[in-house]
């Protein structure tokens, strides 16, 4: 269980409603997701072997998950051989404690940090702040989010919910530059100047990682702005947090993911910068390298063979940009650092189904399947969503006390199953429905159902049960 991620959040259904009313958010998001989606299609279409790459990516990840213990031990050996130090963390608190101690032992109070979902997941910044250590976000969007005291809303472009004038106002205030305009180039320049001083003097760098190669101990960071290079190159000490599922077996496997990731993520042939480092190198970059291997619920995901594939995710965010639900609600409605379709399957598995907010996420989908189609490692998200919905129902039945057992939906489904099992019962039910529906029909459709059933007709009309079924007609014929 993660620490920052726990706490009581409302369900997706509740929050989504309020976000749908925010037209600024919807217009920002609509523009953004459409732009990346179209660009992605362009760069994927120029790859004649895209499907072969996806399949290879899927197979590599499957192999990793089936042998995760082996590859982790291999990674530990190879990183240690290359001059790094490996730490193991069962959960968020343990990971944060390890990092905190490393920084304190070096007598430092500040660290520069590369955008990393994993460190957001464990709430590292807050944990460090509690002991007066400032972790400065250096990715432009993360800096904006951090300055605003806000939460990221997209995996790749975390400040997508903010427009340029909001950012200008924020920078005018926080960077003390009252003359800034809302020109993105000027805003970027202001951030560059502010951060450059920090980079050149930083003693500690903190990063996540996209991939770690078990065989060689090589760790990779993929980025655009150069803040990743700064953080992994300039400080004396580098601390990297790695979710245990990010491991890949061999150096050669990078050739697959370094083709899949940039095109799926930023929709570029290659993103501006990739850094691959293997332990430490004398006279080049950090002389101390610490790698923190993080479980934090991942082994729990691994234990469900039908949900395990979720761990194949390489965090590209392609599924967010094609999702009709995400496009309308935005990332905050998911109450997790992992929003969108992948979040809808990852969050409930990481946090467990007793978390009501997390357990509502598998329902945040129309099951249209667009996410599966774009996924670079072929995670069958719709199938896992359905699987998790089943788990949520069973969980509530077993652990939800009396309310879980007499849940109207569950009872309704039970009644339906019983009815559908016998022809006579089914036909009797049809007859009853035909009588009952008269009270709700307007212009030949059912436009408003009462009570619990009203949810179904809130957005759509329901066709009534026919006056005569095919069977009935057949009987009158003979």
């Amino acid at each position: 269980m993660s620490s920052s991620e726990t706490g009581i959040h409302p369900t997706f259904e509740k929050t989504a409603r309020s976000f749908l009313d925010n037209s600024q958010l919807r217009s920002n998001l609509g523009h953004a997701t459409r732009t990346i989606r179209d660009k992605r299609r362009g760069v994927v279409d120029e790859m004649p072997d895209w499907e072969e790459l996806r399949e290879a990516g899927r197979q590599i990840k499957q192999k990793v998950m089936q042998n995760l213990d082996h590859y982790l031990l291999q990674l530990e050996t190879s990183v240690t051989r290359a001059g790094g130090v490996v730490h193991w963390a069962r959960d968020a608190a343990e990971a944060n404690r390890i990092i905190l101690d490393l920084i304190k032992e070096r007598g430092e109070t500040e660290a520069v940090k590369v955008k990393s979902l994993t460190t957001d997941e464990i709430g590292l910044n807050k944990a460090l702040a509690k002991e007066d250590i400032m972790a400065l976000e250096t990715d432009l969007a993360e800096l904006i989010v951090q300055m605003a005291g806000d939460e990221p809303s997209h995996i790749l472009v975390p400040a997508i919910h903010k427009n340029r004038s909001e950012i200008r106002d924020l920078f005018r205030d926080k960077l003390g530059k009252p003359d800034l305009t809302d020109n993105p180039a000027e805003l970027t320049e202001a951030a560059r100047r502010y951060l450059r001083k920090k980079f050149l003097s930083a003693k500690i760098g903190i990063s996540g990682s996209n991939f770690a190669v078990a065989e060689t101990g090589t760790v990779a960071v993929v980025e655009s702005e150069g803040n990743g290079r700064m953080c992994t190159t300039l400080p004396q000490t580098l601390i990297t947090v790695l979710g245990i599922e990010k491991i890949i077996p061999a150096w050669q496997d990078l050739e697959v993911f370094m083709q899949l990731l940039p095109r799926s993520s930023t929709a570029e042939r290659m993103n501006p910068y990739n850094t691959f480092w293997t332990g430490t190198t004398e006279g080049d970059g950090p002389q101390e390298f610490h790698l923190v291997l993080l479980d934090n619920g991942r082994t729990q995901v691994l234990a469900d063979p039908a949900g395990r594939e979720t761990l194949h995710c390489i965090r590209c965010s392609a599924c967010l940009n094609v999702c009709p639900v995400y496009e309308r609600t935005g990332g905050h409605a998911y109450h997790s650092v992992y929003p969108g379709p992948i979040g809808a399957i990852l969050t409930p598995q990481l946090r467990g189904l007793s978390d009501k907010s997390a357990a509502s996420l598998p329902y945040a989908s129309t099951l249209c399947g667009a996410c599966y189609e774009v996924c670079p490692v072929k995670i069958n998200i719709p199938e896992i969503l359905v699987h998790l919905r089943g788990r949520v129902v069973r969980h509530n039945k077993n652990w939800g006390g009396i309310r879980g057992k007499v849940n109207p939906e569950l009872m309704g489904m039970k009644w339906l199953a019983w009815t559908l099992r016998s022809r006579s019962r089914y036909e009797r039910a049809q007859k009853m429905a035909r009588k009952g529906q008269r009270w709700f029909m307007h212009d030949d459709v059912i436009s408003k159902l009462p009570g619990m059933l009203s949810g179904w007709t809130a957005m759509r009309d329901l066709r009534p049960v026919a006056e005569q079924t095919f069977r009935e007609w057949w009987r009158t014929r003979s």
Partner: protein
Amino acid sequence: MVEDPVMSTAKEAILQRIRAALGDDQPGWGTQSTREDTRSLNIERGYRTHGETKKQQRVGLFVRHVEEYKARVSQISEQKLPQTVADICSAEKVKKLVIPPGLDEKWLPGPESGLTFLRDEPDLLSYDELDKSDAVLTGCFRAVAQTGTIVLNAGPGQGRRALTLIPDFHICVVRREQVTGIVPEVFWDLEPVIREEGAPVTFISGPSATSDIELDRVEGVHGPRRLHVVIV
């Protein structure tokens, strides 16, 4: 190193959780009967492992893709390098040029160019000196036509990573024979380097960039804001 009891407990616990999670599972991978067997299985690598075979076309593709990243490209013969470097520097008002160890001295402009060379040997340049420089001139390990990528591996003529990171302008010399076709080829070429030396590797595809504000692309954030590729 003495085993830290807390650390080894966490390690044991995680490994134990993994084994419990996978324990009774069928591997579900062909006819293999144990988990260990699946490790020796080959991944189906049906994707391309080699790209364009004609050098001329490879170079052409590389140029096109680099230019799409808003980097500048010059194609010249090697003898003209000193003059070209001098011209680029004077056009971009470069006075202090960082020179990594092992760079071919024949590439450097003469004293008439008025350039000051900042050398990273015998003493390393400080971050501050690098920050006050105007540009860096390097070679590279390889370039990739498919993606317009320059690959550095801290080899001779490239220097340590900070040299190509802190200066605001990077002039990179790529030899035509260094341009490979597609991404898998460069990983193949890098493999011995990684295995033997564990050298740090950097991929550069255009100047640094961000699209964080309303998805408007802005070239030049923290890495060099300008990139000039000289192909010889």
